[in-house]
């Protein structure tokens, strides 16, 4: 648990953080967000004493941090930054090993931990352990940055725009991976970002800051539905409804759907769904391959001939996706329902536009 009590930081006449009080509960992801210069990074860096507060007190698990030696404190807190800051003269393995070595772990334990962490962030240890940072892509480097922050298994993670310096697609993947890892590890996380979508996606609670003050600290749903003042209202923007969709998973909206296999004989196809205009097509393993329009049936003599082949990545979503992603696929493809697949690409159902509408209708105004 991280607790800040009336913390202030000023540089001469400029006040970076004013009287900020904030609690991040055990196992909770708290996202600090606000316009640039609002003091969010300063706040984060005060928690591991890279910056000393001018006034106020900070506690970690009940212990006041000013009583702990900075180096010792920092070794017990994971730290990941936007620029990653991997040491260019060390291999990936050596980079990850830094904190465990500072803590004098045994060599075998360190080696084992490196393996474990690389797997955790989805990189093959055999391939990556001996690489140097300049041989990594931006996304890989950020993953190593996260692995390094987790190295000594700290209960607390501080992350300063950890997914900042990558393209949107990679960022989305890294965020999904972060959520998966966080679900498993349940760290207490304080994360700084300026990207509201990222905050909404990752946070258990969002702390919005403006000119050094905490403006609102609440769950994403609450911030989206009940902004505390005009600043938050404007900051959240006019597409609040859309943003709230990104907090709702598709899992509870998946409904069974009709599909035919590539090998299904033509005379059986018609009977699969008599009232449907079209059905999804899967291969013999049940993996999504495209769809079939009823009007094209009479002219064809096999499913393969009649179907429209669809790109699985473009059209389908997984059951971990959000309604916002589902809606975006529907609009992008011009469909009023979108197929849902499992990790292997096997069709498990669909989500329809009607369901998304129903979900928005249920949300508070």
């Amino acid at each position, binding site marked *: 648990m991280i607790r800040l009590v009336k913390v202030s930081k000023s540089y001469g006449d400029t006040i970076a953080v004013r009287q900020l009080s904030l609690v991040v509960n055990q196992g909770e992801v708290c996202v600090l967000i606000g316009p640039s210069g609002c003091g969010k990074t300063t706040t984060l860096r005060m928690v591991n004493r890279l910056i000393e507060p001018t006034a106020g007190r900070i506690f970690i698990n009940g212990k006041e941090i000013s009583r702990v030696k900075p180096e010792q404190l920092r070794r017990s807190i994971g730290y990941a930054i936007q*620029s990653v*800051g991997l*040491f*260019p*003269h060390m291999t990936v393995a050596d980079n990850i090993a830094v904190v465990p070595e500072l803590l004098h772990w045994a060599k075998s334990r360190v080696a084992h931990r490196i393996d474990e962490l690389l797997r955790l962030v989805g990189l093959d240890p055999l391939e990556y352990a001996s690489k140097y940072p300049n041989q990594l892509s931006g996304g890989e480097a950020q993953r190593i940055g996260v692995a390094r922050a987790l190295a000594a298994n700290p209960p607390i993670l501080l992350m300063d725009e950890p997914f900042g310096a990558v393209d949107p697609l990679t960022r989305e993947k890294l965020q999904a991976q972060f959520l998966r890892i966080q679900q498993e590890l349940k760290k207490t996380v304080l994360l700084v970002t300026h990207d509201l979508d990222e905050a909404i996606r990752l946070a258990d609670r969002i702390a919005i800051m403006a000119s050094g003050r905490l403006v609102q600290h609440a769950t994403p749903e609450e911030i989206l539905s009940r902004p505390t003042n005009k600043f938050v209202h404007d900051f959240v923007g006019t597409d609040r409804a859309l943003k709230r969709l990104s907090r709702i998973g598709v899992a509870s909206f998946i409904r069974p759907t009709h599909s035919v296999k590539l090998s299904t004989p033509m005379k059986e196809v018609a009977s699969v769904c008599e009232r449907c205009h079209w059905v999804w097509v899967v291969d013999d393993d049940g993996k999504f391959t495209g769809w079939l329009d009823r009007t094209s049936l009479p002219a064809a003599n096999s499913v393969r001939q009649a179907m429209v082949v669809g790109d699985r990545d473009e059209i389908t979503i997984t059951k971990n996706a959000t309604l916002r992603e589902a809606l975006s696929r529907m609009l992008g493809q011009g469909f009023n329902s979108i197929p849902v697949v499992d990790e292997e690409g096997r069709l498990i159902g669909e989500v329809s536009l009607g369901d998304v509408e129903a979900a928005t209708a249920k949300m508070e105004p």
Partner: protein
Amino acid sequence: MLRRQLNLWILLTVLTGLFVWLIASTGLWEATLRFLFPQESQVLHPRASLLVLVWEHVKLVILSSSLTVLVGVPLGIWVTRPSGRNFLPIVYYLTSFGQTFPPVAVLALAVPMIGFGVIPTVIALFLYGLLPVVRNTIAGLRAVSQDVLDAAYGMGMSRWQALIRVEMPLAARVILAGIHISVIINIGTAMIGAVIGAGGLGSPIIAGLVQDNLAYIIEGAVPAAMLAVLADRLLANLERLFAYSAEKAR
């Protein structure tokens, strides 16, 4: 890549062996110089054998360059730490001054105080070679990115650990380049030691100039040039060794 490194070291060893053999072959030198300058009655400086002259010269360079490194690198480190940051301009200024001040003038000033011989020469060479070492140490350490340092401190390294594990390895190549320049400068400048009796390859050259004996000058200049080439190779190899592995892996 490792094999290439090894080859470079083997080449250097062979060249050094060749050089030692060459300067030890007094007969060969005498025959060659006699052939080139038949009008001279004497072609080899009588003060000492070439081997001794080269050894004196090398000794001057090793002494002065070691002193330069031992003082210059810590000085460069100190003025990039918070405790010494205020002294950076003055250190920069003084080391620049050290290089603009002619070594001969240093000798002229040193002799009345310390007397003749090796020590004043080493002091003059040391002051003269300090600038590139200090300047490159500062430049190398300053080039370490702030993000990398932020990560180092953020992960719990002490200032000392960050310096040893992160800053110095990253700056090593630039620092070595400074030492490289300094040593090469010193090999040339060490010639002036002969003026105040420190010996070295300057002795035959000065004798040659005084007695108008071109053979003497050649006897001093050619081994000095070879020495400079060898030192240059040695330091280039060392730099390659310290270039951090990200570059080696390319």
